[in-house]
């Protein structure tokens, strides 16, 4: 376990060092933990009419937002992890939860291995979330590192 943690930390450090803007220039996954939702003004507008912001994609991914899409997750998967970072961090701390399941599914982890994914992430909480300023990009890279390093989860790594 110690070795695994070290590996992940190195990976994370390398990632942070190499990419000034996480995920590539102008990429959107630099948002930090506890960023919550963006803009209460929009929220007010949306709730007034049950409406949408006018840029709904009908479920289609539109472009890649200038982000690198290499790694295990697709653009949609990264956007999703980024959007539920707060819920995911709480679930990892507790060792269970809907956001944890959603992230496991996004990584393609089958139902029988999700308990392992929950355990590995819970045990490595401080690898995935080293500081309050951790970004989604770092979280995704750490998860990829942990999946690769775990014997049972390694089959889900690219």
């Amino acid at each position, binding site marked *: 376990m110690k070795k695994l943690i070290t590996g992940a930390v190195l990976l994370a450090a390398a990632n942070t060092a190499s990419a000034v803007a996480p995920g590539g220039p102008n990429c959107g996954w630099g948002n*930090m*933990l*506890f*960023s*919550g*939702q963006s803009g*209460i*003004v929009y*929220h007010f*507008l*949306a*709730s*007034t*009419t*049950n*409406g*949408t*912001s*006018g*840029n*709904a*994609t*009908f*479920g*289609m*991914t539109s472009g890649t937002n200038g982000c690198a899409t290499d790694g295990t997750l697709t653009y*949609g998967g990264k956007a*999703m992890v980024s*959007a*539920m970072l*707060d*819920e995911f*961090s*709480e679930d*990892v*701390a*507790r*060792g*269970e939860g*809907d*956001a944890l*399941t*959603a992230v*496991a*599914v*996004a990584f393609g982890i*089958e*139902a029988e291995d999700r308990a392992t994914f929950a355990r590995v992430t*819970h045990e490595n*909480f*401080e690898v995935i*979330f080293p*500081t*309050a*300023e951790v970004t989604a990009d770092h979280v995704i890279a750490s998860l990829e590192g942990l999946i690769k390093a775990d014997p049972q989860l390694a089959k889900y790594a690219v």
Partner: protein
Amino acid sequence: MKRILTIAVAGLLLSCPVLAQPAQPDGYLQQFQTQQLAHDPVWLNLLHYDRHGSLDAPRYSSQVDDPRFFLSSDGHSDSAAELEATLRALFAPDPNGNEHAQCRFPARAAWLQEKLGLATTDLPPIECPEFAEWRGIVKAERVTLIFPSYYLNSPSSMFGHTLLRLDPADDAHSEWLSWAVNFGAEVVPGDNSIFYAFKGLTGGYPGRFNVEQYYRKIQEYNRDENRDIWEYPLNLNSTETQRMVLHLWELKEIDFDYYFFDENCSYRVMELLEVARPGLELTERFDNTAIPIDTVRGALDNGLGSGRIYRPSKASELKDRLRYIPDYLHPKVIALSRDTEEMQQDWFGALDPVIQARVIEAAYKYLRYRQVGRERDADAAKASFTLLKALRAHAEALPREDIVAPGPPDLGHGSRRLTLGLGQAEDLNYLSFGLRLSLHSLEERLYGFLQGAQINLGNLEGRLDEDGHLRVQRIDLIDIFSLSPRDGFFKPLSWKIITGLEREWIDGRERQVAHVNGGAGYATALAPGVQTFALAMARLEHNSQFAHELEPAVGLHTGLLWHFDQHTARLELAGEKFANGVSRRRLSYRHSLALNASHALSLGLERHWGDERHATRATLRYHYYYAP
């Protein structure tokens, strides 16, 4: 018929591959005319036609307000022309991919193929890359009807909302990643005008369907608005679900007229269900108003489902967790959420490990609750992170109970109410009768409703006096009262707005006055089920007996509300003083006994004190609740 079909098919087989000439839909066109397909309910549903006039000579107009939805220039009102144009377009030979009718209108295509006995090979082969990509992403084998609960702080959400969720077949899937299908007004980005709400309610914005992952809806309702969500799994089978999803694609970026009361989110959701299962009649009963919870009941009554799942809001979650922490520690939870150093204090170290874990969990949840809707704050983030690490360290000790669900909203009393009563005002006996279009008063049966949420829109009360006079006693156009008790954790404002007509004693006579009132204040819970409140009020009254017919007043409104078993007691004392010097006070007591979801009895006692004249009134009433 058979012969026409044979000729047509033969013609296709001959002409298409060999001569590469356009396929001929004419044979099928004759067939559809003889079959009256243009008047088939399925076709009418797919085009969202409303029928006007008689069954023998029907005229139609579509609720879709978007030329892109119609292939015939008369398609908005001519169902036969649209069917003919659709059939011709399906046979169109030019393979212009995503824009071909086969790609844009797959539900129409599938239905026509079925009705006319067309094989897929009869139609020109067209590639639909966008549709294929979308079907690959939006996996849908099952459908769940979603009801985010009542939300008083927004005019369009106070009756709740409905949307659909598309789930894959796999039981081990993540519901967070399922697809939510939502109908709402399409907001122009950057439009921050103060008329926004007004425009939204009156059809100033077009309505559209959108599709996004369900976790965004969970965040929007459970976290940002602190609304509980109720999920009703439907029994649509795979074929029915596919039919609905094909039609959903036809509605991509298509504008509807949006009206708040009738052709709203709930109405459109019902239409999708009608497309999924032909023969269902869900929208007919909602011609005038479609209150979301009534449409949920309608779906359940029509055999679409029976179970329900509760997804609590963040505030409900926190309140539930606090039940497991002794009251004396509640201030400590708050203190810990403000200063994580509290974990180093003796009081914390002395706690049992299970309670330690619970206190950390509650403090974390409370801190996050306070941050909702705010910009990221570095100090709050640091404290959140410290608590999160502590939660991680104490996770093994943390018990995991399911949250106890409150009464489900579909089992609450009906939205509409008929009332019959007997009363006495001073020496005059009268018969009281009333109709309320929606929805709930504080003294009524609480089961299935949000505690402290009174929403009465369209309440009419009449009176027949023993001397034969028939009068309108009161009309409440809008009567909303949000009563939310404050405690150490939650600091909501209670508020009230009411406007309509009522009768007031003036110069020895009762007269009708028009009024608008608004006010705000605080409420607190004295004990479980017992709340008191005090609100500062402002009033504008139109009264023909005043020197100036329109007079403003300020006042105070206090009261006590007590729920016990099937009883509710509501005691109120209110007073107001007008700019012209007139003053009034009013004491009222209403006792309500809910027999079940459909029947209730109530007793109302009122005492009015005017400057010169006092009046007392007592009324015993029977209420019948139903859903339209």
